């Protein structure tokens, strides 16, 4: 395959892990890999280049504008101008989905979504998507003319450096967006968080409806902290407003693949399992012996989380 573009996201000069994962896979599939960023190109050119991008098409700082309409319009204009890649890859992130959705309309092309494996077959890209909680894999080929668009789930590939030099920065002008570009970011807030990030932690401890009430989630946070891990949650308790959406593990929410995943009071809805079944080891505590989570747990404990977790916390504290 000729050329693949990767929509790369960055904060300052630090490129997001998902973007590095996409560059790594892209260079195994294409002769030429180039990055597109909705920021200045210079600060990220070295890291993008080190992961295989030869060029970074940069819109420049978008100021208080959102990435979706700006980056999609810029890519569409470049393609219309004759600079068309064979495919564009996006991470399944807040901005990745926005840009891919807008671009799909501009190009009249579908987006192949929730991709966890990307391969080449007969000159076109095939994306594989898990359905029904990850029990069935569906592979989909882009068979239209023009540019194939793929939204890829984080953690699908491992990021590896290629040893390449800095990417060449090329200007990617943003056309006039009209009403579509009218939303303005007026302030940005970072939530206080200690410990590792949910999707990068070696240990994830998650709580579900079995905790019984919102206040009991502090047990999950305590246990996560003792294990040097991050605290996650099932959709049920996020929907119930017990914990913020940013803690959600599952199809909606984060995909995690830690060394150890501890599911506490989580029955194992398919929604949840698709986000954590790639964990190396799974420990589950649930009072219902028939809970589906036990079907994928390396160690299942049929018991009351309100009894088992406090004892576990106490024993771990005694050791430290």
């Amino acid at each position: 395959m000729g050329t693949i573009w990767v929509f790369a996201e960055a904060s300052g000069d630090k490129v997001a892990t998902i973007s590095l994962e996409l560059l790594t896979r892209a260079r195994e599939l294409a002769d030429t890999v180039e990055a597109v960023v909705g920021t200045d190109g210079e600060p990220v050119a070295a890291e993008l280049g080190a992961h295989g991008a030869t060029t970074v098409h940069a819109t420049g700082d978008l100021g208080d504008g959102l990435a979706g309409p700006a980056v999609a319009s810029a890519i569409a204009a470049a393609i219309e101008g004759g600079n068309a890649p064979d495919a564009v890859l996006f991470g399944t992130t807040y901005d990745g989905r926005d840009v891919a959705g807008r671009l799909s309309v501009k190009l009249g092309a579908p987006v192949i979504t929730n991709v966890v494996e990307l391969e080449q077959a007969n000159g076109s890209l095939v994306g594989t998507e898990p359905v029904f909680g990850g029990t069935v894999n569906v592979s989909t080929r882009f068979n239209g003319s023009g540019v194939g668009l793929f939204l890829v789930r984080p953690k699908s590939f491992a990021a590896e450096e290629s040893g390449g030099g800095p990417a060449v920065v090329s200007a990617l002008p943003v056309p006039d967006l009209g009403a579509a570009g009218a939303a303005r970011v007026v302030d940005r807030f970072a939530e206080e968080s200690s410990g590792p990030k949910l999707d990068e932690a070696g240990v994830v401890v998650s709580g579900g409806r079995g905790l019984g009430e919102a206040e009991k989630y502090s047990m999950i946070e305590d246990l996560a902290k003792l294990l040097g891990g991050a605290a996650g949650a099932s959709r049920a308790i996020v929907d119930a407003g017990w914990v913020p959406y940013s803690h959600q593990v599952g199809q909606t929410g984060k995909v995690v693949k830690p060394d150890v995943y501890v599911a506490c009071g989580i029955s194992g809805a398919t929604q949840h399992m698709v986000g954590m079944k790639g964990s190396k080891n799974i420990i589950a505590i649930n009072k219902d012996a028939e809970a589906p989570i036990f079907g994928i747990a390396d160690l299942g404990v049929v018991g009351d989380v309100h009894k088992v977790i406090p004892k576990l916390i106490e024993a771990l504290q005694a050791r430290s």
Partner: protein
Amino acid sequence: MDIVVCVKQIPDPADPGELDSETNTLKRDMKLIMDESDSYGVEMALQLRDAAGEGEVTLVSMAPNEEVNGLRSALAMGADKAILVSDEALAGTDALGTARVLAAAIARAQADLILAATESSDGYTGTVPEQVAELLGLPSVTFAKEIQAEGGEVLVKRQTEDGYDQVRCPLPAVVSVTAGVVEPRYPSFKGIMAAKSKPMDQVGIGDLGLSPDQVGWAGGGQEITDVSPAPEREAGELITDEGDAHESIIALLEELRIV
């Protein structure tokens, strides 16, 4: 304030899903219910309408059959009316085709604000709200965790990787909401009875000025090449807590060198 809420009617997530053996697309010919993800948008719309003291909440939905069960649930919560786009040609329609249909239906409703869930619980592509916005030439804010309306614009807290952005957006606009944006109400008995007589406008794609080749699986530009069972994860040891289960957990954590 006139608000459109996109509502998807899906197979009950508690039932095992199935793929159509001919097309490999999700089977949707059973009884459908309102996607729980959409109840947040419906509730948000009701609260914004009531705070504004005027306007209507219109539901827009699309289904290959004439299913209205899920829409009745949202009407019972308090929405004013519904537009259902129902057409045989819609079978197998992908996200972009869905967005074309919804955008055409929304254009008829003349809304100030269009709300949708960030993604459906069955197809979960998560691209439709942004595609609808682009088709309508509107600004959008996705992943809202809070919405306030004031003087012809909305102020939205948009979820980000490490917190949230405060985003100001003029109306009309499309906003997608995360679960937890508001607590959805349960329909009252009175609401359920009232829902039966609320206006339900059923239209075909021809009524919206769309042709069959813009929707359905054929119009998609993608082809399913393989469907296969994923490798299964084996269940390991299952123990019952007799007061000492934490010791087994610690033993495993030691073996894995976590502690």
